[in-house]
């Protein structure tokens, strides 16, 4: 029994984004990752930081910085129920 990759899930969208990065489609990859982030039920800052970390690992540091900023904004909206950790 293998894992079924469904494009609609955040995990599937992240894999699609990785393929887009490998094809050199940076803007498309960021858009796909953003869709993955928005479709995720987890709205905590750490979730955004996870996607930002992926972008950083793929070498898209400028786009990663925008995600980190967004994560910080989310964190500061409610710092009492979240952690300032960039990795889960």
């Amino acid at each position: 029994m293998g894992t079924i990759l469904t494009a609609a899930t955040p995990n599937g969208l992240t894999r699609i984004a990785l393929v887009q990065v490998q094809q050199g489609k940076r803007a498309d990859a960021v858009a796909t990752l953003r869709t993955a982030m928005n479709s995720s039920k987890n709205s905590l800052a750490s979730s955004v930081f996870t996607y930002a970390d992926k972008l950083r690992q793929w070498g898209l540091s400028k786009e990663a910085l925008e995600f980190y900023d967004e994560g910080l904004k989310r964190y500061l909206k409610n710092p009492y129920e979240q952690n300032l950790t960039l990795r889960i």
Partner: protein
Amino acid sequence: MNSLIEVSLKNEPPVKTAQRLETLIATLQTESTKQTNYEKYKVDAALRQTYSAIEGSFAKDVAAFGNTDELKPLADFYNRGIAQTNGYDDTAQKHLRHFATFGHNALLTDVEEGALLKLKESAFTIYKTNLAKAPATAQQPPAKTQQPARNSRTPQTLNKGANETISSAVDSQHYYNELVNLLSFYDSRAAFDKGAQLLEASYQQGSDQR
């Protein structure tokens, strides 16, 4: 936090990263004052994390990769922060020591010196102010009490001068500690002439007080 610093330094000048992180600290401090108990603990933990990221990885990256054009605005930014921090209360001390540690780790000697100088001056101002208030109470003859001979159960008295109150003795100890810190900094940089000037100036200040 280290990933954020790495990405930010790749895309922006270090002064922008410093502004971003110091703004985060200011916001968290404001939030921390509003809360108590568990919420305060959570925000304080995030504050400590941010402080250590600035003093650790950010400062080390600045020391390793910063060039002169980038470091000048960064030093100016921190020197402005030092100038704006006044007083010797816990918050001011925390800020100034943070700036000094950052300056030390980022090899920004003028920032470190500025922070240590400000700490020394603030401690001296407090000492001077409290000493001026002291004579009214201190010059009254001490009440004659039957002081028992000291043994293992009698508390040791604070080592203070004849005209000093306990408060001014504590303040002078703070001032002395800051002076020693600054002197150690000058010694570590082999700036012995500056150390000598500092001692001379502090001796003059002390003579003026007496």
